[in-house]
């Protein structure tokens, strides 16, 4: 380490490590410790139970669909917010962070009320036999809501930093606007776009509060994995809850590694 004239390195690093260990690392380590005490047969029996598998498929499947929809609209929203001007643009820009600031339980009951058969949105779809609340579509809607800001917020700074000269060069060489967008601009945005998608997906997989109200929680059909963990905990089946949680945590950490790699790619792309 380079010697520095600044004081307090040992104090602040020591405090940082101690606080991190007590608040985050020790509590998180209890999960693998507990899992190690669960007999292997019981562990595999729990995570291959059809009801548990159905919950993984729903949590991952609905998160994937929600992240795709967010990727599509997030790109449009980010583009419009950076490139076009219209009245109220700044308010709309601030509003994008609402899903970060609004408690998930509030989002949950509000979306459920809107989508219920007698709700503002639900009653419009009721005559056509379309049901949202208490179906997988409802789960996906809640996950779109909570993942909405990620794609917009990862794309915005990259679109802002787009070099006008590249577009000018392509245009002066005779490319049509459509070609400039699809061949020049979009490839430049891919890493950030993928990062936003992955962040949105990762957040959705573990989401609980906004989903439990709208899902209806029917076993095998609309029951998400985090809810199954809570159900097991309430039955004092800590071994079962731990087994499900270990699988979910592994997925989260895999996503964390992927996202870190994607962000490295974004940084290199933007810097180079």
């Amino acid at each position, binding site marked *: 380490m380079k010697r520095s004239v600044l004081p307090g390195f040992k104090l*602040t690093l020591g405090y940082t490590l101690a606080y991190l260990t007590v608040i985050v690392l020790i509590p998180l380590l209890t999960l693998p410790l507990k899992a190690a005490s669960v007999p292997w047969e019981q562990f595999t029996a729990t995570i291959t139970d059809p009801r548990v598998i159905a919950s993984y498929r729903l949590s991952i499947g609905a998160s994937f669909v929600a992240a795709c929809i967010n990727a599509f609209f997030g790109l449009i929203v980010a583009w419009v917010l950076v490139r076009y001007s219209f009245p109220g643009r700044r308010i709309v820009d601030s509003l994008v962070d609402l899903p970060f600031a609004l*408690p998930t339980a509030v989002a949950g*009951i509000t979306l459920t009320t809107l989508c219920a058969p007698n709700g503002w949105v639900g009653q419009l779809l009721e005559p056509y036999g379309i049901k949202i609340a208490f179906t997988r579509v409802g789960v996906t809607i809640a996950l779109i809501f909570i993942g909405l800001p990620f794609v917009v917020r990862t794309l915005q700074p990259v679109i*802002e930093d787009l070099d006008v000269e590249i577009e000018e060069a392509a245009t002066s060489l005779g490319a049509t606007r459509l070609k400039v967008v699809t061949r020049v601009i979009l490839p430049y945005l891919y890493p950030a776009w993928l990062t936003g998608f992955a962040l949105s997906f990762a957040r959705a997989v573990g989401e609980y509060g906004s989903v439990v109200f709208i899902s209806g929680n029917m076993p095998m059909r609309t029951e998400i994995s985090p809810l199954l963990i809570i159900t097991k905990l309430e039955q004092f089946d800590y071994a079962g809850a731990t087994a499900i949680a270990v699988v979910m945590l592994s997925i989260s950490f895999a996503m964390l590694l992927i996202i870190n790699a994607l962000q490295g790619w974004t940084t290199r792309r933007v810097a180079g």
Partner: protein
Amino acid sequence: MGAGVAAVGRVPPKSTSVEGGPAGRVASRPRKLTEPRLVRWLLTGLALGFLGLFLLLPLTAVFVEALRNGFGPYLDSVREPDAVAALKLTLLAAAFAVPANLIFGVAAGWAIAKFRFPGRTLLTTLIDLPFAVSPVISGMVFVLLFGRQGLLGSWAADHDLRIVFAVPGIVLATIFVSFPFVAREVIPVMEAAGTQEEEAARVLGAGGFQTFFRVTLPNIKWGVLYGAILCNARAMGEFGAVSVVSGKIRGETNTLPLHVEILYNEYMFQAAFAVASLLTLLAVVTLIVKTILERKLHS
């Protein structure tokens, strides 16, 4: 690298190339470098329609449902003793979580941004860990640790400490989920400020704390506040983690979000939305303060 999962509310590195706003908004662009007018209208319409449906509609619905029966019932639902007790517990949890994570965030920022040491990137990634963990698992680990069958369960019982299904568990879970917010805002702001000013202060004879309070803090105060306001919003609004550790005893271990759930599940919709409207107001205030702070951070 090391930015970790969830760019929650991270201050975007705004471009500085064009004065008065991000580079090349449509007005300042030649026609060839933007889309045809029809396409622009279509895209703007799509974007606003999507945001209107997914953000503005729910935001409006909260207040409409809360005031469904007029102001009288609204005030009654908010003033009801269980709601007041829940509000107090929510404020208490935030009163522990925000200062604790604020002190941690500034200490971590100082160590990580002002010095170079091996494992620095790993440490930054570890700080973001709580964002990668499902809220339900965040609460569950404390049950595994301090619950009756837990690793420290018998120790807690011997000392007559009730941690899970009691207030300390709620405070711990709240601290856990709101852990990274201040640190991840302060680290980039401190890095951007560099170390020259502090070095100059030290050479001129300032003490360590004097240097921090007179030189560093004025440079990072908006970043610290920005992190603190996001930390507070998460602390007051946390549902999943707190739900697992609370035990949901009315008037005792119920926070505002948990109280909303109980009322809703008892079909007391208007009361549920009245309490939810308090949390929604908190969210709106958070967004306003956040927007103001972003402008200060970029000016």
